[in-house]
């Protein structure tokens, strides 16, 4: 009987409801893909001024141009420094006149001039890259000189060639991975690849944010239907309002759980039960939050207004946009403020589990008094 009424109500809004249900999944996929693409395309604009115009300096610039993150513009000194002053460039590097000559003579000090400003956010990284590349050249030159010294010392008749030794050093470095580093956490068996976890935006964080919003918006029926003119008829109907209320809730929950499991299958490659459980608890928390807000508001419009703000706040506190680990290290209690944090740690938060139960009881009492 009640299912029938539910269906009648849903029929009219079937498409919007479905869209709102699937929104977190779709938007998560879109945002993560787009975000990754944007992060790949992100660039650091720098200018290189080549004063040397030698073979070595040109090769050096060519190697620099192969670095993904840098967008290199070749220009004159005047123009480059002007652009830097106008904050159109992150930094300017000037290859000094005697670059090749000095390198060949095993001198490396102050071969490159580096200009940055107090707004060059990525200068430290660019500097690191450019100086290590230049240092590689210098080390290769040093090797050539060491060989020369050795050959002189032991009176060898082997022919000495700067370019050949440099080429050999380069080859050795490229061919063999002489020293590599692998990383794992203590007491964790899976050697997780570290780069994966330092992603700026994690899919689950984004998903949590959109799930909060979509859950809030899907539960607007709590307000809408208790404001509807027909509510007076609950007094005469066979099933009580509270039965209706919780049955509807159950139907929504069931659909959401199915969609959650689907989402998990799509986003994660393996299926881990404990993680699914955490996810379901998170969804329950969202529902509890939505109910809590909804039963206190009379106007749908203010509900629509407040809930995205609440979602934003919870997502921020949960560390979706900015990693909060350091922050929570200082104030551990703060980590319990948002259910999102527990989700991202794949952990069940005790505080929020208690909250779910309390809210169920609270809503039950509040709603059962309403039209009885």
């Amino acid at each position: 009987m009640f299912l029938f009424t539910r269906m009648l109500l849903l029929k009219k809004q079937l498409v919007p409801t479905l869209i709102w249900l699937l929104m977190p999944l779709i938007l998560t996929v879109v945002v993560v893909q787009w975000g990754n693409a944007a992060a790949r395309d992100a660039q650091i604009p720098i200018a290189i001024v080549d004063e040397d115009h030698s073979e070595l300096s040109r090769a050096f610039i060519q190697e620099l141009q192969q670095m993904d993150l840098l967008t290199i513009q070749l220009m004159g000194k005047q123009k480059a420094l002007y652009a830097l002053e106008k904050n159109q460039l992150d930094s300017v590097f000037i290859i000094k006149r005697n670059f090749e000559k000095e390198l060949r003579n095993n001198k490396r000090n102050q071969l490159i001039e580096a200009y940055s400003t107090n707004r060059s956010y990525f200068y430290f990284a660019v500097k690191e890259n450019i100086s290590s590349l230049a240092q590689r050249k210098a080390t290769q030159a040093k090797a050539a000189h060491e060989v020369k010294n050795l050959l002189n010392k032991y009176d060898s008749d082997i022919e000495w060639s700067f370019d050949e030794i440099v080429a050999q050093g380069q080859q050795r470095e490229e061919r063999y991975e002489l020293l590599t580093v692998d990383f794992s956490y203590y007491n964790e068996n899976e050697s997780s690849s570290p780069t994966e976890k330092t992603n700026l935006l994690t899919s689950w964080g984004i998903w949590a944010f959109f799930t909060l919003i979509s859950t809030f918006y899907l539960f607007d029926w709590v307000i809408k239907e208790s404001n509807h003119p027909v509510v007076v008829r609950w007094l005469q109907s066979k099933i009580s309002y509270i039965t209706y209320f919780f049955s509807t809730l159950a139907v929504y929950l069931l659909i959401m759980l199915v969609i959650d499991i689907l989402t998990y299958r799509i986003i994660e490659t393996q299926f881990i039960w404990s993680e699914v459980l955490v996810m379901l608890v998170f969804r329950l928390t969202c529902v509890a939050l939505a109910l809590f807000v909804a039963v206190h508001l009379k106007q749908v419009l203010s509900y629509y207004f407040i809930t995205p703000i609440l979602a934003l706040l919870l997502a921020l506190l949960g560390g979706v946009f900015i990693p909060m680990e350091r922050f929570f290290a200082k104030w551990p209690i703060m980590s319990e403020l948002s259910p999102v944090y527990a989700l991202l740690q794949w952990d069940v938060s005790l505080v929020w589990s208690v909250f779910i139960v309390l809210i169920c009881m609270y809503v039950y009492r509040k709603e059962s008094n309403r039209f009885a």
Partner: protein
Amino acid sequence: MKNFVFFTHQYLKQMKKKWWKLLLLFVFPLVIIALSFMALSSIFVQSEQQKLSIAIVNEDTSSESQLLTQLIVTILKENTYIQAELLSMEEAEEQIEQNDSTAAIVFPSHFAADLYEGTSVKLHVLGNPQEKTQSMVVNELVETIARYIASAQANILTVYHYAKDTSISPEELESLKLELLMDFTFYTMGKRKILREYEWVLQPFENPLHYYSIAILFCLTIIWSILLFVFLSKQTSKSLQMRLKLAGVAFWQEHAARIFTTFMTVLILSSVLFAIALSQLDIQYYALDYLRMFLFVSLLILLTIVVCAIFDVIFHSDKVKLLMTFLLCVVLIAGSGAVFPTIYFPYSMQQLFPNFYTFDIWKWLTDLIFEERNYASYTKSGLMLALALTLYSGLVYVKGRWAR
């Protein structure tokens, strides 16, 4: 006109009635900004203050490897925020478990011998799962050092290759290996000497506190305009709409009143705050400067509200309308370049930014405030406003026709 005044009055009344909600509305963005700021600063500040303590575990007993580990410890200690000590594996594990160490670097057995031979060697970093971010920092650091040593070693092998062909004695060759490794690694580490660095101070960012307070104020103005405009929306039932129409009230009259109320409220608030902020800077402005800034701030608010109003007319569903408006807020702020310089965005995106009015207004505002420029061009923003207003009135007109 009478209706317009009436509705403006209504909106003012509505605001007065819900004053505490309004207060929340104005405070909420501040809370979000403060929270983000605290979180961000806790990332950057602590990583400089707190010392990273690293355990070095050497499973290779050869004397060369003792020297090598010593070398790495010296390199690590060049960073002032790092504490490194040599421990055994058990001790290191215990330290990590007690959260005393951030990470351990493990040198495998035969480490030095393999490295000299030119066979591939693996260093192992054991991170502390309780301090994931810092463990990553250590990992990055070790990877950098490993790259240096590998680079040095590749060239040493070349030298070695030539040395073998000379009349050098085997003992000398052995000691040469170690000597070269130390020498080259230190040489590589000193790469800072290649650069001669100059750092310039750009005017607007000379004092980050001043710059960021103005930037935050700018963002707040946008956020407040949007929030207040949305906040003032009302749900009018179908029957009431009908009655209003019969009384000769057009849709736009109510809407225009809403725009006007929002505009005036935010304008007064922002102007006061901007005036306070500007008085804190030690620059003397002329009355004309204030007028220019005031004009730009009003343009900013008005444009933002009109764009919101356009959204209000286009989208039918309340939910979609709200979500799109919040999205708009994010886009406007990101495109202005007030928080994060736009030069780092992908090139294709960068070309879009000059089309944003927030970008234009922010550029002029910083010029006026920090560089004391004594002229300003309103053409672009003015044109945008005209465009937005035309679009808006067109939409309202169409909607009015439609409703009939």
